[in-house]
């Protein structure tokens, strides 16, 4: 072998070696890249390819009353869906009589059994189970919606192939109509698998009730079957919070029942009964005469699907005098014993104020004017204050701004600025006309007076109960001082006079000292004043006020002289006092004299 040949061979070998080394280096480099530097990306890609993510739906929170009674709860329901395609004439199933073995059954038999379980007409059901007369078989036909798990299990036993249950959450209201307009109702979510709030608390508390979705990550092989040994990554769903209300469902029942009864008695457009705790501002009951069953909201007139107690503003009439008298006493303009000569007609700045019934001219105390609810006297009292002063007090009592309880559609009422009051309005606002408010505003005014002049914003939500049992408190109710403590005390005596010897003598409750104010207001429509509102707002027991009950009837039919909500008020108030074991009053009445002088019994 020549040396050149040897050199060539060596060169070739070296070349090959270098080539191999280069290839090796490339492979090693790639390996290093894949395993070392880019490892996580590649692993992720592989993981993503196998991984499937399932959503775990959270359970919607319940709504409970203050005693823990369930008012709204979410339950599991199933939709039964059948795929009509590729079905044979007969199918095999496990025997239903409990014995072992299987049997073949035909469609007629299956439909018959199905119809019996679902309580549907067999002929009608057959049309949805099987395609009719050569029609193209459908892939998705809903046979029944929202069936209970028991029914679903029974249906599955029939063994119809390609009949599948779809789980969905349904909202139920076990108490029926109790607090219906407050709870509101729900609608199906976009994907039809759950529900979302549509009205009332269900809507306003949506973010609390809803909860957070969880997820479950599983790995599946190429054929779609789950790989059993792989790790399951599970983020549990956080169930919605339970909303605890300040409502007592028993009291609410009584309020609703009495409201309904009163509505029927006078054929009123609506009647509302509101019960509020004096010391906390918490709403104990809101009873509307129109019943709403949240299980079937469509059965109720749309107008009454929200609580009228917070959505409907009306001119309150004489209950509005309470704010004016409180303002006058608070400003020191009058005392309860300040004397007035009260005629039947009183003309001031060319505006004549009439009393509802003709009466003689009386020498009365301020307290007496309040007790007998004379408009003329009230104007004399109110005139001791400026328009601005009265307006400011009315605003402080909460008039003219909506009371937000967590319910949508809360009405602010209408309270014009004093500079915009016309010549008559400046007087009518003293006796509850010329501005409007809701029943809840009335309750809030009387709560303020009964609570020593301190207004606590009404609240409906006691707290939110988390999944682990802990309770999250809602934001504290705003408190504000409206009138002095002494003023509030005097106002209670004035209210007692109403029940003792004034317009509210039928409101007495045996054993308890009761105070309050009646109110007959004219109700306006676009045709002018063509109806009435009639109400009584009362507080008991007066020695240590605990509860406010406001009974209001809107547009009752018949003569206003016959209107009465006495039985409504006394029934609800005595029920509340009994339920909460309020000790009876042990002190004597502190009502002031109505008239100046000895003689107190004078004709109306």
């Amino acid at each position: 072998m020549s040396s050149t040949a040897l050199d060539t061979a060596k060169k070739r070998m070296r070349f090959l070696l270098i080539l191999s080394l280069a290839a090796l280096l490339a492979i090693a480099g790639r390996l290093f890249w894949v395993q070392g530097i880019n490892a996580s990306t590649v692993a992720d890609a592989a993981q993503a390819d196998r991984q499937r993510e399932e959503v775990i739906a959270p359970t919607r929170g319940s709504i409970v009353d203050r005693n823990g009674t369930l008012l709204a709860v979410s339950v599991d329901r199933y939709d039964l869906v059948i795929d009509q395609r590729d079905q044979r004439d007969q199918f095999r199933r496990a025997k239903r009589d409990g014995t072992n073995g299987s049997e073949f059954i035909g469609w007629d038999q299956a439909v018959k059994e199905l119809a019996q379980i679902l309580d549907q007409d067999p002929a009608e059901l057959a049309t949805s189970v099987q395609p009719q007369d050569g029609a193209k078989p459908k892939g998705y036909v809903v046979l029944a919606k929202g069936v209970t798990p028991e029914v679903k299990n029974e249906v599955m036993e029939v063994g119809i192939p390609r009949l599948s249950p779809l789980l969905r959450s349904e909202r139920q209201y076990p108490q029926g109509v109790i607090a219906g307009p407050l709870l509101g109702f729900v609608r199906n979510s976009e994907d039809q698998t759950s529900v979302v709030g549509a009205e009332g608390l269900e809507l306003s508390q949506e973010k609390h009730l809803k909860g957070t979705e969880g997820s479950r990550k599983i790995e599946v092989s190429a054929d779609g079957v789950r790989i059993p040994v792989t790790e399951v990554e599970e983020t549990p769903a956080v169930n919605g919070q339970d909303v605890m209300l300040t409502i007592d469902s028993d009291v609410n029942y009584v309020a609703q029942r009495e409201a309904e009864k009163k509505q029927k008695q006078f054929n009123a457009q609506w009647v509302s009964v509101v019960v509020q705790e004096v010391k906390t501002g918490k709403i104990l009951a809101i009873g509307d005469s129109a019943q709403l069953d949240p299980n079937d909201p469509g059965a109720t007139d749309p107008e009454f699907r929200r609580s009228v107690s917070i959505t409907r503003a009306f001119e309150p009439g004489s209950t509005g005098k309470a704010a004016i008298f409180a303002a006058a006493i608070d400003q020191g303009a009058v005392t309860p014993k300040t004397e007035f000569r009260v005629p039947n007609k009183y003309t001031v700045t060319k505006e004549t104020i009439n009393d509802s019934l003709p009466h003689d001219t009386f020498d009365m105390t301020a307290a007496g004017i309040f007790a007998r609810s004379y408009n003329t006297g009230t104007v004399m009292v109110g005139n001791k204050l400026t328009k601005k002063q009265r307006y400011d007090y009315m605003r402080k009592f909460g008039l003219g701004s909506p009371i937000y309880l967590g319910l949508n559609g809360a009405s602010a009422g209408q309270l014009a600025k004093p500079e915009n009051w016309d010549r008559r309005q400046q007087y009518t606002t003293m006796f509850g006309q010329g501005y409007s408010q809701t029943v809840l505003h009335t309750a809030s005014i009387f709560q303020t007076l009964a609570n020593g002049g301190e207004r606590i914003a009404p609240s409906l939500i006691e707290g939110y109960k988390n999944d682990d049992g802990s309770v999250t408190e809602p934001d504290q109710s705003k408190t504000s001082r409206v009138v002095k403590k002494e003023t509030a005390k005097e106002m209670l005596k004035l209210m007692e006079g109403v029940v003792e010897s004034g317009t509210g003598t039928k409101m007495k409750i045996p054993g308890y000292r009761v105070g309050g104010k009646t109110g007959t207001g004219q109700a306006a429509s676009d045709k002018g004043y063509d109806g009435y509102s009639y109400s009584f707002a009362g507080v008991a027991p007066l020695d240590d006020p605990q509860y406010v009950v406001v009974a209001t009837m809107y547009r009752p039919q018949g003569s206003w002289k016959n209107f009465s909500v006495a039985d409504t008020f006394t029934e609800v108030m005595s029920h509340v006092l009994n339920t909460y074991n309020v000790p009876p009053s042990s002190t004597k009445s502190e009502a002031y004299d109505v008239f100046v002088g000895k003689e107190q019994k004078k004709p109306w």
Partner: protein
Amino acid sequence: MTQRAQRRVTKTAAMTAQTVVDGSAARAVRPEPVAASELPELDSRQRVTLSLVPRINETNKRSMLVMVIALVVVAFSVIVTLVLMNTSVAQRQYDIVSLRNQERVLSQENQALLKEAQSLSAPQALAKKAKALGLVAPGAPGLVDLNDNSITKSADKAVEAEGNSANYATLPLPGQSIREKAKADTKKSESKAPVPTVGNASKDDAKPATDSADSKNSTKSVVKDESATRKIADDGRPVFKDSELNGGTIPAPMIKSPTN
């Protein structure tokens, strides 16, 4: 090469070689075989020759067998353990699924029972039952002053049955539709009071109880009349008047006036 051979020899001492190589040329003589154990010390530059390996004795053979068996057993047990673990993990997964199903079934059962209990204890349901049992609302309770042991107020007697103002069981029961309730009430009222007029209730103040009953009946019969006069067409659908159908359009929502 030579370096390595030398190193190996010094290390083991069991392997050696005869001087069969002289420089780079092989010797002509064929060396006598020598037992590997008796190899003499070597010159470093000499090549290692083949030699007889001493026979492995019996004990070594047996330990080898034991070793192999042990290894096989270990390997086998590892495989079995792995398989068992895999199965148990898989089984666990099935257990989890079945427990989950069980949990769902139980919670559904719980839901159903709870709901039933709540519906049965709803105030209006209780009121209805109480009424059926002949219970009436109590009168005002009596009051005893504990300070001076005096009766400050004696209890009122409850008003019996029909006269009792607190007419319980007027609200629809849970699960009872408001529509059904209205219908049922109308039927009842029809048989009792055929044609009461609307709004006569408030005129007579003396008998509020009977009045309330009348007006209740009247409002309900009005509702009933409306539904009763609705004709049903052959196809099972109710017949609406043209005015009711509003020309086939849905009326725009009306603004709710607060004073209305």
